[in-house]
């Protein structure tokens, strides 16, 4: 059944041309987005994302972790081409799509990069049936032959995401489905066009707790069986660890740490990552009293921010240098990098454990 989803066609696309086996599927370089705010006389800017760089390999799940205002949603919207970048490059299959398709994403790009949203209700059109939602991408991307073929594809998709009996579900409207079922329809819709990469913006945070694992397992299954890569946004470190091969940590518009997910969980290097980890309620660790790793205060304003590391205002180990210069990316180990002055070249050996 999964074979009928036609994943073999993925390689035959105009955008695949420049790729060598080592090229990452997605290579984001120094991506920056500023939003202008304020009046005519002096326009100020919200530095939503500043100098963000990371890669996603084929068939890899990369979890992008951060709190409100960290810039994770903006990052994903830039990659989905829903908003324009201020600076930087987005290389997909080795080609900078911001140069090859500057104004609008091509149909080919939109077929290869799909998106799932946080709110399963508002991401579906309330006046159309499930069948319509799944038919539309197939029709737009010209992936169907005739009516009967289209319907069979739709039923196969619904079955694949666990929505049975498919013919009955296909006839329903969104309000006749539960939250988990709607999110499965959204996933089926993204799968319909056999994408290379799915951008998932907090796909489970609005679902009931007991339903979440089913959706995460579905995502993991498609990664294993269909080789789909995911950029998975979440504020929940536990689900990032569960499903992510790689974890990237964002704070106030900057990417401050990244690496293989078990490595990050076991040896968080950046003081913010440590703070984040210490804040997650973990019943397995037993009742915990006040942690020493703390940081008073809140995320600073993103409007025309001062130079230096954005976490300096809260960091218990901030140095003078931190307030002046944004740290460069340094490797703590081959699969683990961090942007923090505590890891200046002479300090690499003192990884905080």
């Amino acid at each position: 059944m999964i074979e009928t989803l036609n994943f073999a066609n993925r390689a035959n696309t105009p955008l695949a041309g420049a790729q060598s086996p080592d090229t990452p599927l997605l290579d984001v370089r120094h991506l920056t987005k500023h939003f202008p705010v304020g009046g005519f006389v002096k326009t100020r800017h919200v530095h939503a994302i500043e100098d963000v760089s990371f890669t996603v390999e084929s068939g890899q799940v990369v979890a992008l972790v951060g709190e409100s205002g960290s810039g994770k949603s903006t990052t994903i919207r830039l990659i989905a081409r829903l908003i324009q970048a201020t600076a930087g490059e987005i290389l997909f299959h080795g080609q900078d799509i911001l140069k090859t398709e500057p104004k609008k994403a091509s149909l080919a790009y939109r077929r290869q990069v799909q998106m799932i949203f946080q709110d399963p209700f508002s991401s579906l059109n309330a006046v159309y049936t499930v069948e319509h939602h799944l038919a539309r991408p197939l029709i737009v991307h010209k992936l169907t032959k005739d009516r009967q073929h289209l319907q069979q594809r739709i039923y196969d998709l619904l079955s694949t995401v666990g929505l049975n009996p498919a013919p009955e579900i296909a006839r329903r409207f969104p309000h006749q489905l539960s939250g988990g079922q709607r999110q499965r329809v959204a996933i089926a819709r993204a799968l319909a066009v056999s994408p290379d990469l799915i951008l998932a913006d907090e796909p489970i945070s609005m679902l009931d707790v007991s339903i979440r694992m089913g959706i995460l397992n579905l995502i993991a299954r498609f990664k294993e069986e269909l080789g789909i890569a995911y950029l998975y946004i979440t504020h929940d470190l536990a689900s990032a660890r569960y499903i992510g091969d790689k974890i990237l940590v964002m704070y106030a518009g900057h990417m401050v740490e990244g690496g293989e997910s078990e490595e990050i969980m076991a040896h968080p290097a950046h003081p913010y990552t440590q703070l984040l980890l210490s804040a997650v309620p973990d019943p397995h660790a037993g009742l915990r009293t006040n942690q020493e790793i703390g940081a008073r205060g809140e995320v600073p304003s993103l409007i025309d921010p001062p130079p230096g590391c954005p976490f300096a205002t809260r960091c218990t180990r901030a140095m003078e240098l931190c307030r002046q210069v944004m740290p460069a990316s340094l490797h703590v180990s081959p699969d683990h990098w961090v942007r923090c002055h505590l890891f200046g070249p002479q300090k690499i050996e003192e990884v905080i454990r």
Partner: protein
Amino acid sequence: MLDPGVIQKGLPLLDIRHLKVEYLTPRGPVHAVDDVSFTLYSGEVVGLAGESGSGKSTIAHALLRILPAPALITGGQVLFTGRDVLEMSEAELEQFRWSEMSIVFQSAMNALNPVMRIREQLLDVMQAHGLTGDEANQRAVRLFDLVGIEPGRLDAYPHQLSGGMRQRAVIAIALTLAPPLLIMDEPTTALDVVVQKDILQQIVRLKEELDFSILFITHDLSLLVEFSDHIAIMYAGEIVEKAPARELFERPLHPYTLGLMNSFPSISGEKKQLTGIPGSPPDLVQPPSGCRFHPRCPQAMSICSQAAPVTKTISANHIVACHLF
């Protein structure tokens, strides 16, 4: 403020007995809370865990008699220091709310009036209970100090405060008259995890300083295990299991509790495959026959669809409603 002499030794502060709440809908009555009983003793934190449709928020609103139409309390008693809240008159309720029992809602923006400064909202509560003037203003300053907001922000409007600060403001309002019981209905769900931890630590400190009890309602079971003394698990309007927090975590009995525990990936230790619970929350107009959880239960037997299980006591303070026992 409650006279400490009124709380007799050994009697629960809150004693809910066979509470029933229904919502009247065109399709028929929804049994949102169906024969729920539990107690809370002075100084305790009792956690109420459940998902959508479990009835936990309905209970919170029922305790304060603030259920909106078409909800109706159709049975049971809510005894607070021996007095039945369900029998109180409007006048008695006005005195009761805020001074003896208060509530912190999920989304602070829903609880705060956007066109009033925070100070006015604090003073509003105090004024309704006869506290005015300088004394009221001083108390407002003290409250903000207690919850960790600098008193200069008292004159801000809600939208000028961050999410975490707004939630602290709502907690300050709830503590204005130092009620012995604070109900918290998903107080940190809309907040980031670092802010959540910060606020919960603050609440622990406040609880020790002001000596109040908490009914903590949330879907986040891992939070409850860290924070509560006792936990009651709700499903489809009923309590399916109840035990001291540590006991529940180490020896969960009900298949739903097990399923819930199986829905929280861990950040440390061995990485295991988790399954959550298959299926969807039940239709509360026509709930499943017998045990309401049976359609989703991996251990369902034939009796489960025929007869509702009776609540049994397994060990000290650990009860469960399941045919497996």
